[in-house]
């Protein structure tokens, strides 16, 4: 078969583009494994002569990256589980049960989807700080720090996204009513119909929402930045930013930290690309 020159050109352009996208990741990995001499050499050493794996344990000696990593993982898993539980239920109710005020509630949820972060974040902080009976607060939420610097504040506020409810509603809507009616004739209760009949049929939506929730939670920076000051509660993104501000020139350790903070998402993405792409495309087009 003859190779068309236009094909070659197409691949050439795409390959160069893809390379530009990948270079920072490759440079991060390579830099994280360079020796002290090679990382501060000029011109930069492209391919290290010696791979210094001990940069990783050494970086963890500078900052508790293990703890940061564990915190991020716990929070991301927590957010994913809670979001799936609450949003499937809410989406199901909105899609499958007619009741008075349903469209009003749905409209309200759509509206919350469009609220920008900065229109709510300051009061969110105040609510967390004023949580009664927590962190030395009295029953009116005065006197202490409330939920600040606690697991509560890291997990609860971000545990439900209106986007997930919306997504599940759309998927539940597309299921045929006969299924539900057949189950009802068999004498199944409403919750059993939801859990055993309908929800197993929206598995693609579950995968998509789970991945996007996990990704958002893992990458989240602003909220954990403002509500935590304790080192043992830092998530990896905040820990990394804090480490950079202290150790400005320890580039090999910084790149080791960055690698730890990005690798889980990269691996997850490469294995579940289909769901990610589907999710972002439907989120985009709706």
């Amino acid at each position: 078969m003859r190779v068309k020159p236009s094909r070659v050109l197409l691949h050439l352009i795409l390959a160069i583009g893809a390379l530009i996208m990948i270079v920072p990741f490759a440079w991060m990995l390579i830099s994280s494994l360079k020796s002290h001499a090679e990382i501060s050499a000029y011109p930069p050493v492209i391919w290290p002569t010696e791979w210094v794996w001990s940069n990783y344990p050494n970086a963890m000696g500078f900052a508790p990256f293990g703890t940061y990593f564990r915190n991020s993982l716990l929070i991301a898993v927590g957010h994913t589980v809670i979001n799936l539980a609450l949003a499937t239920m809410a989406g199901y109710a909105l899609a499958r049960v007619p009741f008075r005020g349903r469209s009003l509630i749905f409209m309200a949820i759509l509206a919350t989807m469009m609220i920008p972060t900065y229109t709510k974040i300051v009061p969110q902080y105040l609510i967390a700080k004023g949580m009664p009976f927590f962190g030395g607060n009295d029953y009116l939420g005065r006197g202490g720090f409330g939920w600040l610097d606690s697991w509560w504040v890291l997990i609860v506020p971000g545990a439900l996204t209106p986007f997930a409810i919306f997504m599940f509603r759309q998927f539940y809507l597309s299921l045929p009513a006969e299924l539900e009616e057949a189950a009802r004739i068999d004498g199944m209760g409403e919750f059993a119909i939801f859990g055993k009949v309908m929800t197993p049929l929206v598995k693609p939506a579950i995968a998509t929402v789970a991945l996007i929730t996990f990704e958002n939670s893992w990458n989240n920076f602003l909220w954990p930045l403002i509500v935590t000051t304790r080192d043992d509660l830092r998530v990896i993104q905040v820990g990394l930013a804090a480490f950079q501000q202290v150790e400005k020139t320890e580039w090999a350790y910084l790149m080791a930290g960055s690698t730890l903070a990005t690798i889980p998402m990269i691996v997850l993405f490469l294995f579940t690309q289909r769901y990610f792409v589907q999710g972002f495309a439907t989120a985009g087009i709706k």
Partner: protein
Amino acid sequence: MTVTSLPAKAPAAGAPAGPTRPRRRRRLGYERRRAAWLMLTPALIHLTWWIGIPVLATFVLAFTHYDVLAGTITWAGLDNFTEIFADETWNTSILHTVVYTFFTVPVAMALAVVIAVLLNAKMRARAWYRAAFFLPHITATVAIALVWMWMFEPNIGLFNAVLAMFGVNGPAWLSDPAFAMAAVIVVSVWKGVGLKMLIYLAALQSIPPETYEAADLDGASGPRRFWSITLPLLKPATFFVFVVSMIDAFQVFDQVYVLTPDGGPANATTVMTFEIYRTAFSEFRISTACAQSLVLFAFLLVLTVISRRLTGKDDDAR
């Protein structure tokens, strides 16, 4: 958006109206509604608690003087707004946000549409290319901004070393007020291309191949097809990407915070979100920060309304 109403209470057509039927139906309806409310309540409580109340509070606090330490609150009218617009740094931050958006959004969109069109052809390794372009979108901004910071390092960084090969003496990107914003924009374009490309790709796949047949018969060239057929058909997608990207760009924070701490050299990269962060969480001037948040909100609202007007009915289809 399609709002499909469900066949709620299927009328028992033809069935003799037995005495037990209506009562059973009513009980069933009650049970279903009860279950629905039980399933909906946790979500409604959460959304009211963490979105509904905070949004209202932002609006109220912006028009009051709230002292977070003393816990006192007094009516302020428009005082907070006159205060922030008298603040030089805040006004600069608005300008920077606009500049940032003005350069980031169109550049990233142009690149995204070209990549999407190229990727829309059937070819080998297509999924790999797509993954490569999309990868930056799903990785943490903080971590990847640190990598760029390392590449922008003026003396031993990769960026200036590459420039030096072409005989260009690279600047001290992030610490030079003239270049800091440019560096932030480069990172944002790199990170933002993937999502836009993906939305374009989804839109392209809904264009039927027959659309191009007439053009093929006329022997139209590739670029000609792009300008005359593809781009006009992508108009709804373009507007959608535009709105989403603008809203995103106006709220840029993570990369600005990491790449150029404290608003950058001589406040060269301070943006609206960074000023809100600084006012609220390092100066604890809560009411002032809420007023600033409302200004940002007003910008987003106006942008959304304008683009809705421009798209007309097109947008209702999404």
